[in-house]
């Protein structure tokens, strides 16, 4: 085999891999879904009471299941199922770690600290998603929101305000990233 043939074969392989990766991309769906869920949760957080917690107790697992259903349906339609394990594990980790981190910080510190901890865990989870998707826009957004959440909590802001601001900011970042993503991969 000559060098030119080897180069052509490698180019063909990379073209196929790139096309397969694009086909497997379904990440816009959970971004838009959880972005919308976050935005809806902001007024509930600001109002206080049990509704915000109750909302997420239902919305988070429902969103997770809906994302799985969408991915499965799309795989059957397209005949192509992308690699789901890293996304599934990260999503599950966010679901489990968010209330645990908030409880832990609340016991040691303040309610505002617990609100910031929730934002940090969700932000860290989405930073993993951003890395998996090589999405600098999403990564920059979640880092900025996480830093703002910590600054607000340390600045003595009220827990309800921290939670509402984090929900609004993360919701906007997720929604913006999802719409951008959907536009970039129009056929997804």
């Amino acid at each position, binding site marked *: *085999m*000559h*060098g030119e043939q*080897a*180069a052509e*074969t*490698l180019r*063909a*392989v990379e073209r*196929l*891999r790139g*096309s*397969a*990766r694009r*086909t*497997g991309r379904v990440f816009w769906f959970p971004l838009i879904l959880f972005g919308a869920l976050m935005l809806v949760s902001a007024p509930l957080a600001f109002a206080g009471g049990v509704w915000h917690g109750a909302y997420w107790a239902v919305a988070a697992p429902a969103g997770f299941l809906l994302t799985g259903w969408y991915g499965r349906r799309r*795989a*059957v339609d*397209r*005949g*192509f*199922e*992308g*690699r*789901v*394990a890293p996304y599934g594990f990260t999503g599950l980790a966010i679901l489990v770690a968010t209330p645990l981190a908030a409880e832990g910080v609340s016991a040691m510190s303040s309610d505002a600290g617990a609100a910031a901890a929730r934002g940090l865990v969700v932000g860290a989870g989405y930073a993993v998603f951003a890395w998996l998707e090589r999405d600098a826009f999403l990564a920059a957004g979640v880092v900025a929101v996480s830093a703002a959440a910590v600054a607000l909590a340390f600045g003595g802001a009220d827990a309800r305000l921290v939670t509402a601001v984090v929900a609004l900011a993360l919701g906007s970042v997720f929604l913006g990233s999802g719409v951008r993503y959907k536009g970039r991969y129009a056929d997804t």
Partner: protein
Amino acid sequence: MSHPSVELDETVHQRVRLGILAVLVESRRVDFVYLRDTLELSDGNLSRHLQILERAGLIRSEKTFERKRPRTWLSVTKAGRAAFAAEVEALRAMLARVDGQTMH
């Protein structure tokens, strides 16, 4: 030092089979029709190459029945992933060797 072409695996190196593995390594599983259309092959041609890869233990197939239709899903095995990576590595080594010779 042996020539990098010695490292090429005959089963994997064939152009269509390398293409099949290139698609499968980026997925959890892919159905027969998607592969056939992506690689622009006939049913018979694709089946022959799939049989060779499956016999070598590089891919696995799973027959299901979805929406009242039979369907064949294909996925790459651990050995298939390793064989594909080795093949790409051998091709890159070959290219680097040619580039090196051109520069001298």
